[in-house]
């Protein structure tokens, strides 16, 4: 990982467009403050917030008073990123912040409504703010990046007309999570898992991102978006690529992202007219009553999707992805279910199946790993039971808070390390996988979303979907497989 020495002669400025919004206050500034307390911020870092709220430096600092240590570095400009005139004002303000001498590095952070991305990027191009003539220029873009393949491509085209790809940092904040990064370490820094990490030993993989929240006030946005755009196109597919990828030749951004793109390429596309065999849409019962949601809305707040990776490593191993709102738990888990031992030496009761081993990765909450295996029950006779080899971050690294994803991501962006950001081809591949499913769900022949009760695990059709495959949804952390 590159760690650039602070440029003592010049400056580094983080320009947050849309700084009066939630993200700055809830995530970005706290992350910067934490980095600062650990001595990891470039010494010369300045922060310039730009937004349409009418405020000045002092008022903006007052909003962020909780992070007093950063106060002196915080500046504000009332301006509209879509206005070239305002961008000129931004440049002037930057000049005064940056001072003279040395190189002036800038990280532009688009904390804006996605509809503004295009004009923001074009604007930065037109005002020549993207040119790295006296220091580097980088652009961080939040999700969603496009709403389908076509719009994503257009957005990439705009971005590439203004920036080089190596200047563009698309955030999927899941990649900033410790446990997600740890997946790579777990796989590639230990000799014991790789020999098992393929179709010969793995029966299937389940990836679950479940939320308890409903959509709250975001009806307008969510009704246009739905769970497949909101969660599958980004987080779930990212998790899948990390599980499925080949080892990169080196631990650096391009090598890593090349391998991820290879996985995405290999995923078998679902035909829209066939979607019912591979995916189950769901909607929580009171969804249509939410404000901003159309009373006849068919937007899916839940989906279960089965994907196949057509390559030598994974042929025949299904990847089951599911995510939804208003479910029973808030958790993100990856469960790798191994095949059963080929020959059972030990006595089983008549109706017992040979229990298979599972490796569960808890991305959140309670970050850690469990390896479920069979052990002898301490008893005079021979009986087996399931036991778990457990590791939890909070126990092992107690006293050390797990850094928020944004800490990691901001630092990497400041250092120019794109490993944990999504590349343009990754984004487009992911859309090309999800688009046909969304399209399929909207066809008149497709199943309408199945209802499920709030606080349940989703529609019963999703359970049947698994059962037809001879499998069941697993909830990690409980001995043995249990249909939740």
């Amino acid at each position, binding site marked *: *990982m590159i*760690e650039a020495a602070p440029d003592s002669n010049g400056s580094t400025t983080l320009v947050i467009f849309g700084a009066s919004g939630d993200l700055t206050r809830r995530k970005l500034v706290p992350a910067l403050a934490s980095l600062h307390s*650990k001595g*990891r911020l470039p010494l010369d870092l300045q922060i310039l917030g730009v937004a349409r709220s009418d405020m000045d430096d002092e008022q903006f600092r007052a909003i962020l008073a909780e992070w007093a240590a950063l106060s002196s570095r915080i500046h504000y400009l009332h301006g509209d990123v879509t206005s070239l005139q305002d961008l000129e004002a931004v440049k002037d303000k930057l000049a005064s912040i940056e001072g003279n001498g040395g190189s002036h590095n800038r990280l532009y952070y688009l904390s804006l409504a996605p509809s503004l991305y295009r004009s923001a990027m074009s604007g930065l191009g037109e005002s020549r703010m993207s040119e790295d003539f006296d220091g580097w220029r980088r652009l961080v873009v939040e999700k969603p990046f496009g709403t389908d393949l076509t719009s994503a491509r257009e957005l990439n085209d705009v971005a590439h007309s203004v920036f080089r790809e190596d200047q563009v940092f698309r955030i999927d904040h899941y990649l900033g999570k*410790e446990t997600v*990064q*740890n997946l790579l*370490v*777990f796989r*590639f*820094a*230990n*000799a*014991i*898992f790789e*020999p*098992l990490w393929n179709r*010969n*030993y793995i029966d299937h993989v389940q990836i679950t991102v479940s939320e308890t929240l409903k959509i709250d006030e975001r009806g307008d946005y969510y009704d246009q978006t739905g769970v497949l755009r909101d969660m599958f196109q980004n987080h779930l597919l990212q998790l899948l690529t990390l599980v499925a990828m080949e080892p*990169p030749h*080196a*631990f650096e951004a391009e090598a890593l992202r090349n391998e991820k793109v290879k996985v995405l390429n290999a995923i078998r596309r679902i035909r829209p007219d066939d979607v019912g065999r591979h995916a189950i849409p769901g909607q929580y019962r009171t969804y249509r009553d939410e404000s901003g949601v159309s009373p006849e809305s068919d937007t899916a707040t839940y989906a279960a999707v089965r994907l196949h990776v057509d390559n030598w490593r994974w042929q025949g191993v299904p990847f089951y992805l599911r995510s939804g709102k208003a479910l029973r738990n808030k958790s993100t888990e990856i469960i790798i279910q*191994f*095949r*059963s*031992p080929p*020959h*059972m*030496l*030990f*006595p089983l009761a008549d109706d017992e199946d040979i229990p*298979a*081993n599972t*490796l569960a990765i808890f991305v959140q909450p309670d970050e850690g*790993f469990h*390896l479920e*295996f*069979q*052990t*002898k029950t*301490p*008893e*005079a*006779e*021979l*009986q*087996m039971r399931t*036991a*778990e*080899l*457990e*590791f939890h*971050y909070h126990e*092992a*690294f107690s006293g*050390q808070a*797990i*850094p928020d994803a944004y800490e*990691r991501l901001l*630092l990497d962006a400041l250092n120019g390390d794109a490993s944990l950001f999504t590349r343009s081809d990754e984004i487009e591949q992911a859309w090309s996988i999800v688009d046909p499913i969304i399209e399929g769900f909207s066809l008149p022949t497709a199943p309408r979303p199945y209802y499920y009760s709030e606080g349940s695990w989703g529609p019963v059709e999703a359970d049947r979907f698994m059962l037809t495959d001879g499998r069941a949804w697993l909830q990690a952390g409980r001995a043995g497989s249990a249909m939740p």
Partner: protein
Amino acid sequence: MTAVTEQASPCTMVIFGASGDLTARKLIPGLYELYRRGLLPERFAVLGAGRTGMSDDRFRRRMGEELANGAGGQPAADRERFLGALHYQQLDTGSAGEYGKLAERLRAVAAEAGTGGNFLYYLATPPSLFEPIAGGLAGAGLAEQQDGAWRRLIVEKPFGYDLESARTLNERLHTWFTERQIYRIDHYLGKETVQNVLVLRFANEVWEPLWNRATIDRVEITAAEQVGVEGRGGYYDGSGALRDMFQNHLLQVVGMIAMEPPAHFRPSAVRNETVKVFDSLRPIAPSQVSEDVVPHHLFGTPPPSVTDGVPDPAGYGQRAVSAAAADASKLIIRIQPDEAIQLCCNVKLPGAGFDVRQVGLDFRYADLADTYLPDAYERLLLDGIMGDATLYARADAIESCWEFVTPILKAWRDHPGIPLHGYPAGSWGPAAASSLFRRPGYGWRTPMPSLSDPGGTVAL
């Protein structure tokens, strides 16, 4: 190992050396636990036999005291019923003429208890009495199996003190008992955690593919004792550890770790596979003994440190892709104390970069709710009663282990020039022991009292 569904057939157990320590500390308490769990046959009796004179009553009272001192809380009535099944016969076990008396008493006890003709003979005596007792039983017609009744002979260790003596003992015993009747104890095989090696390996998909030279760099097996030699100096001279621990316990554990999967779980299949391991051990030539085996002897007073018996297969990992060098993964099977299984592998250190650190994925027996870890003897006694010899050593296994160990003993005896390394009590043994690894920086892993403590490595 016995499956739950079988029912134990009625029998009477004769314990030779019943006035000794083993009976009071292990055998009777073991039987009592089996009784409490309903695993003893419906009709069962014990006849203790020994040189010390004692009445049935006195024997019962003595055993009763032992039980009362042990795991507390049992209702006294329960104990009384169990103790009622115990009997005692004074016997000069070394004298062949005495066995007629034994036969008479035995039949009387069996008749009263309704156990029929099944007899389980347990030799809890010094090894010098093994032959006289076996011969005496045969002489009194008590060895032969007839009319559907079984007779089994459980022999404690040590079984011989070198290859020749072990062979001789086997030959002698075979004149009176068939091999199928002979059960040689290695109580390590009765330990939960040791049996669990078999379950761990063969009831799971994830370990077997790794269980070979492609993934495993080396296996370390450590049985460290805190207790000094104390009163047993005569038994424990320079070659004491080799005979006491190596020839039996450690090699048996090697057998379990290294064996091929048996086709099924019957004693013959399992023991065939472990014998194959012993037969495959590369013999250490006399000239190599000084390099390949490091004898050491303890000097000084016993330390306040911890008892530990830990077999430890270590896995060797490839170099990580990340910046920091990664330690090899390890699978640690802790037999005692703090019985557990731990998988040590590399995880990312929280924070910036991709630095790795080794942590343990733990499973502790202590974490299982209401876990009772049976004493090894409980297990072995039950298997003896059920006639399951899986966890007992077979004649060829014993001889194969002695075949491996004896040349080492011989070399030490014949070449006094081979250094005997001293080590202070409370240390991890002599530094020279690390020379066995023949790789710089490699050394013995030091097991810690608690598995959470990763300990260190004793390297040269």
